Structure formats: C-alpha cells, structure tokens
C-alpha cells in the first residue's frame, strides 16, 4: 500500500438482501489517519456498510478495500491490522477481563500479550477489575474493556459502532478523549458510526450521511453546517433524514 492509497476504499458498493436493498451503490475513500463519522437513521445501511468493510458480509456488487486488501477475497491479509468495537457485540461473560484480553491478544498476534494487557489496563483504568468476569461489570466498565480489546493489536484501522451508547456523559467523554489520543499518537484511521452528533462533531473531520442505503451528503462538519444553514449537526441530520434540504431547494 502506498501512502496515497486510501485506508478504506469503497467503490459502488451494493448489498441486496431478500427484503430489498440495504446499501445502494455507495462510494467513498478515507485517507490514512482520518476520522470519519458515518451517520444515518435506523435502517440507513450503516451497519451493513461496516460489516462489508470488515468482510463479514459479501457485497452483491462493488468493492471494498482496507489497507489495500480486497475484503471479499483477501481480508486475512489485513485483519490483524484492524479492529472493531461495538457495545452490541459481547465479550465472553464467564471469562475474566484479563483472560478475554489474553485470548484476543493471541488471536491478533500481539507479541508480548501480558505487557500489552498491563499497558492497556493502566491507560484505560482496568487494573481493579482485570480478574473479574466480564459479565459482572457495569456498562461503563464493559465499554472500557471492549475498547481495550479493540486496541489490543494497536490497529491502523479502527471501526467503531456507537462506542458511547448507553454510557453516562462523564464516561462517554472519557472514551472520546481516549480515542482522540489514540488517533493522535498512532495516526490510526477511524470510521465511527454514531447517533450522537456531539460526539461526531468533536471527533470527526469528515462526515458521511446515509439514508435508505445511499449517501445523501458528505463533507466536513463545518461545511455541512454552513451548507444547511444550521447551528448543530443534529439539525443537519434531521434535515437529511426528513428530506428538508430537497424541499428547501425545490422552493428556491
């Protein structure tokens, strides 16, 4: 992969299920080291898009490449350089935090797993519950453990699906701060699906807005605010979700 190759390149991506089109011909390219927000209402196609980027779902047509590898045919070339975090995917509940991190560290080929676990435990404040079963943690603790799992291999590409869902504002702010730090120090590429507009405004330099499987708009948060004449990204999100921009443009 050359330095000009996008970290994630999606080209005319389509996913059709029996129930209809989930993703309808989207294209985008994320430069290495960028943080991009993927926004859209329920059923907009965000989760299917992320699943195709990870190679968990095979596209009906189009291509997805991560770090230069085709994610349908050769995803195993790059899976050890990427990771994923979602509050909707559990860690094994009966295993302790340390056991879970050890298993995932080995799966990701981390050279010195115990040292990495100790380092993550210090960074993410996990030390007090490293020996507690994952199923007995609070929501905030689980999110920190999940984040530790997603950072265990120091990924170059990090996919996050609503990383702060169901967290109190303090813990959510702490998680965002850590992600910002990680990105700054590691130069990682982050794709973040979220419904939290404050989070997207704070973390993302680029936003992709999806609706019914298509990209409705994409730009920096500042440009989107200017273009829609809004003060908050939440209002822009509502305009896109409810088709107000088209209505306004038609009236003009």
């Amino acid at each position, binding site marked *: 992969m050359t330095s000009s190759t996008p970290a994630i390149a999606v080209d005319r991506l389509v996913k059709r299920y029996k129930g209809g089109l989930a993703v309808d011909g989207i294209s985008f390219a994320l430069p290495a080291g960028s943080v991009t927000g993927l926004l859209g209402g329920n059923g907009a196609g965000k989760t*299917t898009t992320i699943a195709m980027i990870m*190679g*968990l779902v095979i596209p009906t047509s189009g291509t997805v490449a991560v770090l230069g590898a085709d994610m349908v045919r050769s995803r*195993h070339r790059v899976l050890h350089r990427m990771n994923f975090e979602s509050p909707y995917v559990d*860690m094994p509940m*009966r295993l302790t935090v340390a056991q879970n991190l050890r298993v995932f560290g080995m*799966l990701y*080929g981390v050279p010195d797993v115990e040292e990495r676990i100790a380092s993550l435990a210090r960074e993410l404040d996990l030390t007090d519950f490293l020996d507690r079963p994952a199923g007995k943690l609070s929501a905030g603790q689980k999110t920190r453990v999940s984040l530790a799992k997603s950072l265990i291999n120091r990924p170059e590409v990090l996919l996050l699906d609503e990383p702060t869902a169901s967290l109190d504002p303090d813990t959510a702010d702490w998680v965002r701060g850590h992600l910002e730090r990680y990105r700054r120090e590691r130069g990682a590429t982050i794709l973040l699906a979220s419904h939290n507009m404050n989070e997207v405004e704070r973390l993302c330099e680029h936003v992709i807005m999806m609706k019914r499987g298509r990209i409705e708009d994409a730009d920096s948060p500042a440009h989107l605010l200017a273009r829609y004449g809004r003060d908050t990204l939440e209002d822009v999100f509502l305009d896109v979700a409810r088709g107000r921009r088209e209505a306004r443009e038609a009236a003009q």
Partner: protein
Amino acid sequence: MSEAAIAFSWRRVGAMVLRYWYLLRSSWPRMLELIYWPAVQMLMWGFLQLYIAENASFFARAGGTFIGAILLWDILFRGQLGFSISFLEEMWARNLGNLMMSPLRPAEFVTALMIMSLVRLAIGMVPVTLLAIAFFDFNLYGLGFALAAFFANLILTSWAIGILVSGLVLRNGLGAEGLAWTIMFLFLPLACVYYPVAVLPGWLQFFAWLLPPTYVFEGMRALLIEQVFRTDLMLQALALNALWFAAATLAFVKLLDSARDQGSLMQTGE
C-alpha cells in the same frame, strides 16, 4: 505484510483452546455434565448385560459387547457433542462477531474445536472407562491397537458431523441448535451399535454400510466375540471417513459463505 499472519497459526488455535479451557474451568456444572451421563449409561447397560449373560449362553460368551458398544458409542456421540458445544458457546456468548472479525481463520477455528472435543471426551470418558473396570471387569484399554483404530475412525466421524452441524448453525442461527444434540441419534439404529448389520432388512443394510461407525461396531463385535481384528473393516471405515470429512468441510465452507452473503454472521441469535 507478514506471511505468518496469513498462514495457519497454531498460536491462534492455542488462543481458542485457552478460551474454552477458561470457560470449562470456570463452571463446575459444565465439568459434571461431561462425566455424569456417560457414567449413568455405562452402568445401566453394564448391569443389563450382566443380567442377560446370566440367562443366555450366547451373551455369556459375548461378554463385554454391550459395555464395549456403549463406550465406543459415547466416543462417537460425545466427540461430536464436544465439538458442537464448544462452537455453540460462541453463539450463546454472542462472541462470533468478535471472532469472525479477528484474524482467526476457519481452519484454525475448526482445529481448536477438534482439540476441545478431545479434551472434553477425555474428561468424560477416562473416569467412565475406569468405572467399567471396577464394576464389570471390562478393560477398554485391553483392546490395545484395536481401540486406537476404533477411536480414530469414530472421532473422525464425530468431527465430520460436528463440522456440518456448526455450518448449519452458522447459516441458520440458534434455531438449528437442536441438530447438535440430536443428529447423532440418527446413527444409533443405522450404525448397528448394539446388534449386527445382518439384523437389518437388506435395503437398509446398504445405507448402514455408508456410515463409517458401522464398520467400527462390526469390528468391535468380531474382536470381542470371535477374537478377530478386522483390518479390512477399519480401512474401509477410514476411506469412508475421508469422504465424509471432505464433504463436511466443503459444506461448512459453503455455509460460511452463505452466512456471509446473507449477513447472518452479524445476527447470531435465533
């Protein structure tokens, strides 16, 4: 890009074995479940054989066939169950997404499941075989090389069925979980565990001989009743196992591809 990351990795296999070992170790009901049912079955069939042997001269001569059959049947059944339950643990824990997004390759996952089926089988069967010696003076290990041949063929079949069932659960979700518990019982009458193949109607014998375990149970009876080790039967079983294993692996790959196509790896519930 390191080629080692693409190639088959024993470290990743080790990670999965460690994951299942942590799970087994953390749950005494899981451990107990491995031992108690094989023990109950062995005791029941053992006492039944004692009773029949006292009342029928043929069975007196064929000492150990029932206990031998139940112990070998348990290798087949528990081998498959050990494989399938380890796989189901990932579905129950909703952890499959994490695994499928990790560098773990399907071949490594399957290898770890095969190792765990051996571990679970050892935990369950070793105490039961010792009980068989204590209660009925039946020493399974006394079969020597024959036991190795029986075991190899039975475990290969159990893995083939385990791979197939895992593929079906992967594709269809936990709605297909029941297959993991029941599919092997299809083999019970057809593989002629407790009686010779000759007992079956002619047309059914054809289907019985398509199953590798049929050769093993016939071989066991030949050994215990006639004291003859049938190498020919073991080789035929091995050849059939190779076919079964290849077919199950192919089916697993196709079902995994189908699950990726249908997006069912993201929804590993019902």
